[in-house]
């Protein structure tokens, strides 16, 4: 009987599934999200807005807010 090591298995699995997501084509994304593309735009908009709070607009010398650790902020609260 071999020992079971869930953290190692999970990490390997998440890495492999992550590679699958990275390898997904645009067509597969649209098929998965619905052919009308509505949910693609919605999701993209949601992520873009979140990213924008960190990076600001291109050309801006500074991001809108400093790229600090949100996780640390959560943990501190």
């Amino acid at each position: 009987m071999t020992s079971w090591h869930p953290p190692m298995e999970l990490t390997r699995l998440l890495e492999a599934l992550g590679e699958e997501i990275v390898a997904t084509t645009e067509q597969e994304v649209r098929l998965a999200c619905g052919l009308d593309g509505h949910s693609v735009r919605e999701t993209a908009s949601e992520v873009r807005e979140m990213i924008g709070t960190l990076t600001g607009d291109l050309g801006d010398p500074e991001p809108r807010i400093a790229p600090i650790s949100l996780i640390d902020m959560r943990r501190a609260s």
Partner: protein
Amino acid sequence: MEKSTEGGGGPVVTVDNTADDIARAIHSLSDADLVRLKALALLWTRGLPRSLSWSDILHEAIARALDGSRKWPSGVPILAFLSGVMRSICEDQWRRERLEGEVLARDVDAADLCAAGDTAGSAADPERVVSAAQSLAVVWQLFAADPCALKIIAGLADGLTAAEICRVYGMSEREYDTTRKRMRRALLRCGLDWSAS
């Protein structure tokens, strides 16, 4: 400097890059890329010790990329790079959890905290084992109706290559590829609804 080309995982920088390059690459991501980025964040949220959200880990990953604490290797697609940063964040969070637990248990001072760090990865962390087992169960549940996908999941968790999975589970190459495509769609479509599991 910046020299970008389009790759399977979004823009790829072919020379040394800077925080500005990273910001530009992230800004240039297409709608489909951003959907994949969210799916990656949802995926890695499963590896975190607490109920942090996908936006927390994505925010943290981008912050680390922009502040230079994580370098973007040349030739690596931006999505693959950010996925790697998120993986690293998961490890860091577990390490921190373990250190805090040890410090609380021993009521030690800052010097002991450093010493504890040296042994942080040496023994199994019961909380992490339980959390990982629960996350594995959620992944299996996601593909419960697809026996072929479950075989691939089991093989990937064991660290097998595609060829090894096919050999061990008696799958044809075509069956393997077809199943992987179904799995990709499931990962994206569900947005891993499992985030709420």
